């Protein structure tokens, strides 16, 4: 079957696809948990700050990941 499949490219696509498609998606979800902690009324002020920090970090990584994807695509 190897003559029909570029195994080398395939596993790279698998890893990158999982990193972006699962990793970044999950990080975005974590960021939303952070945002929710910030807006929940009964949360303490410490929890709010931590939530905001978590959200900022997560969303930054997600945006950076997306930008990297576009950059890689444009470089071709």
């Amino acid at each position: 079957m190897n003559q029909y499949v570029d195994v080398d490219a395939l596993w790279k696509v698998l890893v990158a696809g999982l990193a972006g498609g699962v990793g970044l998606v999950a990080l975005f979800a974590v960021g939303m948990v952070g945002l929710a902690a910030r807006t929940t009324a009964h949360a303490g002020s410490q929890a709010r700050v931590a939530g905001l920090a978590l959200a900022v970090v997560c969303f930054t990584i997600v945006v950076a990941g997306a930008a990297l994807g576009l950059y890689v695509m444009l470089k071709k």
Partner: protein
Amino acid sequence: MDANALLLGVVVITALAFDFTNGFHDTANAMATSIATRALRPRIAVALSAVLNFAGAFLSLKVAATIASGIVDSGAVTLTVVFAGLVGGLAWNLLTWYFGIPSSSSHALIGGVVGATLIAAGSSAVKVEGLMSKVIVPAVLSPAFAGMVAIVGTFLVYRITWNVPKPIRTRGFRLGQIGSASMVSLAHGMNDAQKTMGVITLALLANHTIRPAEGTPFWVIVACALTISLGTYIGGWRVIRTLGKGLTEIESPQGFAAEGSSAAVILAASHFGFPLSTTHVCSGSIVGAGIGKRLAEVRWGVAGRMVTAWLITIPAAALVGAGAWKGADVIGGTGGVAVVFALAVAFAAALYLAARRVPVTHANVNAEWTGTLDPEKERVG
């Protein structure tokens, strides 16, 4: 105007027509989920996708003047073969659009060219190994793989955000969806507009209108970018309806996971040179997003019909491509091409009129799925 220039003109027009169907057939890939979850209003969604397709077409400037390279013998690709191949791809795109089935435009084009080459130059001009490794195997792997990524992504997204209040969750994921759908649109413009640019460049080279060193003329880039984004804006509402409402009921977290998976897989594949079809990836992701949410319903009948269409895309387009070449050849010369062209126009007009009888538009694209494409059924029932 001599016969060659006329032939060239017909090929360019056919290529742009294919580009147009490529755009409106594939709007669904990027935007179906965003429309279904109401992250974007239908018309805004297609407009955004159109702009991004246009931008994408301009951003990718390395146009290769090839058509089905490595799949058919490039020496066998004459202007008439290109024309017949385009007619095959065009016919299949229109037919699948009429039935609202998401199917790969690249496969349709490749099928058309393979069919035309087979009948024009014989079976030795078609490279079976190239066809397997560049088309068949990726077609099997890509939806499965994208689906897997989307299953895991959807599962995690629901697990992680189970405690997040629903209004925040829905709003947040809708925003995320807009972002990831935009990535898919941009990537689509980069990849698919380029294909038609390559086809037209090839035709111009074959006709000695341009020399190889000149590269793709600017007007070709502009024309292709405009046509694909116009097609995207017109919107293949029938296909959007099947992908967004037919396959599974989509919530915004699922839509986000599906588009995230599609964007990641498409970008990764194009970077590492693994040839994937955007349509297969996106459809696989949406089914995956349906499976990933526990107890969500995937309508396997609809999915089955879609996969069946994928299986017959290449043979069917090949048949039309072969017929188109044979027809043009039997009648002979420019007249033959003109007759086939007229037949193709008539076929397109007939399907357009047939589609008007059961219209799917931006207004009813989100109507409840009642087992068929027809949004009117629910009013009766």
